[in-house]
């Protein structure tokens, strides 16, 4: 591969281009009409417009993207994450067009995209899955027996379900039949089908995932875990490695399961095996993501390996750069995701022009961003605008470094979650490593931004007028320039 088209936008497109550039590989960006001046489009060697702003008319148009690769002479396509990255048809079409798809086999993408098929495959491979019952025999006595063997608490879910309807948590056996009745009533009312499934309910799980990598020569390695328990409405906002829950023994068992999960499908390229880890140390396969992960930089910081470079080498048919025993982790790494959203107002996504932008710098401080001053945050795409990643000797050092770096991150023009992230990094339970998927709901349900420094901030508005005009690429921004309101001057002797 001499030239790669990146079928994505924002920070991940920028990040992939950096590695391509280091490797002497040409870069082609695709951009929607509103993104033609965006950072990823500015950074690429070439840029092709693939349609109007809505993703369905641009970044999700497989044919347009493949056509762009052909017309620019790109010989490989990197899908990034999101958009078409886990679309098996796209992977097939890219390869059918004689191009390299930088990712796993299309059949594997398809298999892992199905919750039921992947779960069956995992059971065959001996990877633990959440114990449950998902069968046709629905009489209460049978379900009751199944419930006993799964254990409590457990979850009753409508098979046809979604949105929490027909879903019941049962904490003890003597409540089971009563809750089953209620669940079946709800399921009938909502979906016209009272079939339910039973699943062990994990009260306070952690989200732990393993980075795996395979090549076409049968090599398969893992690059340790990432803990992503800090989530808001199933959206990860802070990730770290190693996990505070990890012991060498547990890591060994989980890594073995992760490699088995990838091995049973002869996985190639980068993948992530996600698990739920229960408080008793048992863990269960959740799903496998068949692409690079948003939070991959913490693994890169920990191991010193460039995962995009690995992806390109594997896609070229080369063996993995390292054997398992050559991979080691150094210290601790943590990432926070910076979103254009307003934590004081229900975390609503924010749109606007970035009028002021200042990234923090420092030893082992990495910013993967998709924006610069003058860029527009539009309604069309994900509001994540940057990732701030640090590495340090231990977790305490990492939290200190991250707090300092967040305070030095200046983004003006849209509201962001930076202060919210800072509050997490100061919260005692977080600092003790007591991180579960319900962490934010438990500790930050009533979050209010701190305005203890409002008077100092008001005083500083006096400095808002000074000489920033030259930095702005936007004509529409005006400043309180005292020189523009000069009246009544005359010369003196």
């Amino acid at each position, binding site marked *: 591969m001499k030239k790669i088209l990146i079928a994505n936008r924002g920070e991940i497109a920028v990040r992939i281009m950096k590695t391509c550039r280091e490797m002497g590989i040409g870069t082609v960006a695709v951009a929607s009409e509103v993104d033609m001046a965006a950072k990823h489009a500015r950074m690429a060697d070439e840029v092709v417009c693939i349609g109007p702003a809505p993703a369905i008319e641009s970044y999700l148009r497989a044919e347009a993207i493949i056509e762009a690769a052909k017309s620019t002479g790109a010989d490989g396509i990197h899908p990034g994450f999101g958009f078409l990255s886990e679309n098996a048809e796209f992977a097939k079409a890219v390869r059918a067009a004689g191009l390299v798809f930088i990712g796993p086999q299309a059949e594997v993408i398809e298999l892992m995209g199905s919750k039921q098929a992947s779960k069956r495959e995992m059971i065959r491979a001996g990877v633990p899955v959440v114990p449950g019952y998902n069968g046709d025999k629905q009489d209460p006595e049978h379900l009751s027996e199944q419930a006993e063997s799964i254990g409590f608490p457990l979850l009753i879910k409508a098979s046809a379900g979604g949105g929490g309807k027909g879903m019941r948590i049962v904490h003890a056996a003597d409540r089971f039949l009563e809750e089953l009745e209620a669940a079946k009533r709800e399921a009938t009312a909502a979906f016209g089908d009272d079939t339910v499934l039973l699943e062990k309910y994990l009260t306070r799980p952690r989200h732990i995932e393993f980075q795996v990598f395979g090549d076409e020569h049968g090599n398969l390695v893992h690059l340790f875990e990432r803990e992503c328990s800090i989530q808001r409405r199933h959206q990860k906002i802070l990730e770290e490695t190693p996990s505070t829950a990890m012991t060498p023994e547990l890591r060994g068992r989980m890594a073995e399961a992760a490699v088995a999960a990838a091995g049973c499908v002869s996985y190639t390229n980068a993948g992530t095996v996600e698990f739920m880890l229960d408080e008793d140390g048992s863990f269960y396969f959740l799903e496998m993501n068949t692409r690079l992960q948003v939070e991959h930089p913490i693994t890169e910081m920990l191991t010193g390996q460039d995962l995009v470079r690995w992806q390109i080498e594997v896609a070229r048919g080369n063996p993995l750069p390292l054997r398992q025993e050559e991979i080691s982790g150094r210290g601790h790494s943590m990432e926070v995701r910076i979103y254009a959203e307003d934590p004081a107002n229900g975390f609503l996504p924010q749109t606007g022009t970035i009028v002021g932008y200042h990234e923090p710098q420092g030893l082992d401080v990495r910013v993967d961003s998709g924006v610069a001053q003058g860029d527009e945050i539009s309604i069309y795409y994900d509001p994540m605008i940057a990732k701030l990643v640090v590495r340090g000797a231990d977790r305490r050092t990492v939290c200190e470094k991250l707090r300092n770096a967040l305070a030095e991150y200046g983004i003006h023009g849209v509201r962001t979650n930076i202060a919210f992230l800072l509050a997490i990094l100061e919260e005692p339970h977080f600092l003790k490593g007591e991180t579960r998927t319900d962490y934010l709901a438990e500790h930050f349900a009533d979050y209010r931004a701190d305005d203890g420094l409002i008077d100092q901030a008001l005083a500083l508005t006096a400095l808002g007028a000074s000489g920033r005009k030259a930095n702005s690429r936007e004509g529409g921004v005006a400043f309180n320039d*005292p020189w523009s309101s000069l009246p009544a001057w005359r010369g003196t002797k």
Partner: protein
Amino acid sequence: MRKQFKLGDRHFKIDWTGIHPLHGTIHEGEEVREFKLAAPASGSGRLHLGDRTVPYFVTGVAGGVWVTLAGETFFFENSKGKGGADDSHDGFAAPMPGKVIKVLVNQGDVVEKGQVLMVMEAMKMEHRIEAPGPGTVTAIHFQADDLVDQGVHLLDFQPEAS
């Protein structure tokens, strides 16, 4: 210099009497709070808070001012003065660092439109502070020979109710 802002349902009126250091008062409702802060006179830098400094960034835009201080970001939206005019652009802000050379009125004086209230000098240029309309001089913050920073609020003026 005076600016008026709102943040949510809070309203602020800020009067600066000095920029080096930042010195002045904040009026919020009935409350008046004073501030005095040593900060570099540029859009970004570090501000002394106790025995530490914290980073700040300030960006002025047409509708207000963005301020980030120690990781907290505020957008202060411009709000209008009593007379309906945005008095962050009133004629009473010192346009540049300089010296007050004459004060021609006293506190409480009723003045006419165009009447010269104060004269200052900077870089060999003389600047006359004139009344924008009929009204009353309600406060004078500097006397002859005082040195003033750019942007500081020189005097208070209450326009005549029309």
